[in-house]
């Protein structure tokens, strides 16, 4: 099996996944000025889920009651299941929420259960957003530093770090892109859990790359004569069973969570699924081939090729 030989095909496949994601991020940006809708964890605001014991009143009625008590809060109301509504709005206090719920109960004559209510001030949201950016950056730097350290005995240890971080960025873009596409069609919002999933994907992505690199490191000591390309390819093939099997077991548990774990974490689990799949792909088809591209300094050929084709 020769994976390295077709490396540019695999790079192309990655691009074919990433580019639509970027397109949708731009589409979302045009609509809402962010790559995908952000939840109140980042923007501030309120989120209320109310369940009605009897028949659910019409959206308009709920909206007018909401606005009557909390004017200028721009509530957006979506049905939830058979008997509940999810209401997003600008930030309202707990006291205001209490009044709204009481009023809803009075005017509709039903018993109302507050399933969940969150209220986040915009200043906290802005801080969380900043901290999220810092966390992702910090994770990338920590991974680069750690791999350079772990592979310090090998020639060009820094290359391994860069290759793993490139694969990691690939996974980050895949996840962000998929989120942008899902957000565009299903109106999903990125919340604190989405961020948790993203950071976990970062950890797993590097985890997978290291397993392949570890084989390259080991084989480099054993087979000193064979060309680097063959060496890397051999390492990939040797770790392929493991990569696929681990991928399968993690997928089994995540699929179980996605199917049976309930609505609250479904978004989180699906993002993890996408990211971890991408992580395994990128460790095999991106991270290791990048080592070969670097070793051969192939970018010089890219330049020449493009010159020739233009000529």
């Amino acid at each position, binding site marked *: 099996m020769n994976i390295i030989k077709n490396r540019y095909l695999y790079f192309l496949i990655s691009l074919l996944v990433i580019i639509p994601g970027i397109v949708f991020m731009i589409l979302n940006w045009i609509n809402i000025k962010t790559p995908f809708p952000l939840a109140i964890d980042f923007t501030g605001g309120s989120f209320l889920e109310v369940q009605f014991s009897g028949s659910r009143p019409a959206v308009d009625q709920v909206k007018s009651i909401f606005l009557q008590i909390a004017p200028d809060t721009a509530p957006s109301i979506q049905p939830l299941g058979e008997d509940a509504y999810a209401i997003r709005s600008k930030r309202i*206090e*707990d*006291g205001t*929420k*209490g009044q709204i719920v009481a009023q809803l109960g009075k005017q509709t004559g039903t018993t109302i259960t*507050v*399933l*969940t*209510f*969150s*209220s*986040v*001030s915009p*200043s*906290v949201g802005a*801080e*969380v957003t900043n*901290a999220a950016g810092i*966390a992702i950056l*910090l*994770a990338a730097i*920590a*991974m680069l530093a750690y791999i350079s350290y*772990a592979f310090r005995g090998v020639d060009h240890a820094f290359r391994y770090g860069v290759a793993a971080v490139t694969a990691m960025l690939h996974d980050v873009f895949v996840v962000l892109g998929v989120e942008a596409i899902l957000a565009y069609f299903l109106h999903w919002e990125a919340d*604190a*859990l989405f*961020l*948790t999933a993203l*950071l*976990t994907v*970062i*950890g*797993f992505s*590097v*985890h*997978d790359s*290291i*397993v392949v690199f*570890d*084989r390259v490191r*080991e084989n480099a000591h054993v087979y000193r004569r064979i060309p680097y390309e063959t060496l890397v390819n051999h390492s990939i093939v*040797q770790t392929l*069973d*493991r990569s696929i*099997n*681990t991928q399968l*077991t*993690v997928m*089994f*548990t995540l699929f*179980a*969570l996605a*199917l*049976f*774990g*309930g609505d*609250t*974490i479904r978004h*989180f*689990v699906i993002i993890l699924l996408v990211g971890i799949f991408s992580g395994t792909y990128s460790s095999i088809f991106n991270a290791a081939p990048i080592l070969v591209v670097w070793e051969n300094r192939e970018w010089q050929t890219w330049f020449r090729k493009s010159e020739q084709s233009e000529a």
Partner: protein
Amino acid sequence: MNRSNTNWLITIIILLAISIWVDFSKEISLINPFNLNGSPLFSRNVDTKLGLDLRGGLQTLLEADVPAGSTVSSTDLETTRQILEKRANALGVSEVQMQTAGDRRIVAEFPGVKNPEEVISSLQQTGLLEFVATDTTVPPEGSIIQTDFATGSAPAATPAPAANGSQPTVYHTVMTGKELVTISVSKASISGKYVINFTLTNAGSKTFGDFTTANVGKILTIALDKRVISAPSINSAITSGSGQITGNFTVDTANTLAAQLKYGSLPVPIKVVESRTVGATLGEESVRKSLMAGYIGLGVVIIFMLLYYRLPGFVATLALVGYAIFSLALFKIIPVVLTLPGIAGFILSIGMAVDANILIFERLKEELRAGRNLRQAIDLGWSRAWPSIRDSNTSTLITCVILYIFGNSFGASMVKGFSITLALGVGVSLFTAIIVTRTFLHTLLDNLKSVEHPRWFGL
């Protein structure tokens, strides 16, 4: 059978026994063998702790309401936290948890509250300290009394109805905490007990002097937000504008009372910047569903391991069950508050626990194919897989640390919970994959000669 394997086997069995004991208990304790009726040597509550998203309740993030840029001293923040905790406890909410987060925030958790609006409004109140004339009545500490001092808002808790349905007595407020100038704690030279010294403003001295002169021997109750914190008797007229509160104080109770007198109102004003309420029904449903998902995930992984890796797969399955037993025991002992993402992190780490074993088994198969005998192959499989297991898991642990720090600074207990269970899962999985699986496999080989057949290893 070699010696170290036997030692490991014994260690593992002991650890398993302890873990199973913890898993099935709500409280663990060791009786002192030399004094069977005395207090136990060791006792600990190990009931599973569920986060607010699973049991329902209210979580709020409170922030010092001071201009941006100005700093809040950590002592002030801590005192605020203590006062708020007392207020919350006075509301009758059990298991209130309050922690300072960062340099100007407090995270408050109220499991299972039914009235989040009331709880929040009482937190935002500034405390009102009153000196109340209760004549000869000594109201019990912690009870709620009614006074004639008008407040803007109603007291946080409703007054306890007096016996026989009669109207509760409304006492006269002599003075409020506004008149206090200094408060200190000292040790009385004669009795050796702790006393609280205070001085008053000029207006306060006058009021207090007149009142105490007329009421020597009676009770002057001190109440914070209408809740009695102390009920000392007036020993003599206090006209000098300074006096002492004596009583059965220890150094701690005296300091607490002094703090309450000093900070009748909070040392720093606070505002609610975030609040999250989860209804109990949603929580219950989440627990049920995520446990279900966990069982199914575990089941599918076990079937896969058995089919693909045969005998080692069976051993890995045993190790995986051990992994679940150890992890649960650790969650209960530490204790880790289980949130929904926390459970997801745990279920995810089942996949990781298997990863270490898969790395080893693939290595083992390679060594067998290379013609080594079984025992050599097992040892080589482990030693050669180790560097990649170590390095790859370190990267996951680094991510967990970053997630934890991120979650901690915002009181984001969901993110924190996920990072803790995932990190613990990685740690325990290394132990079960590397030590437990190997020990079991060796033990099995020692006792069953017939298993030395390549087919048992999926070749």
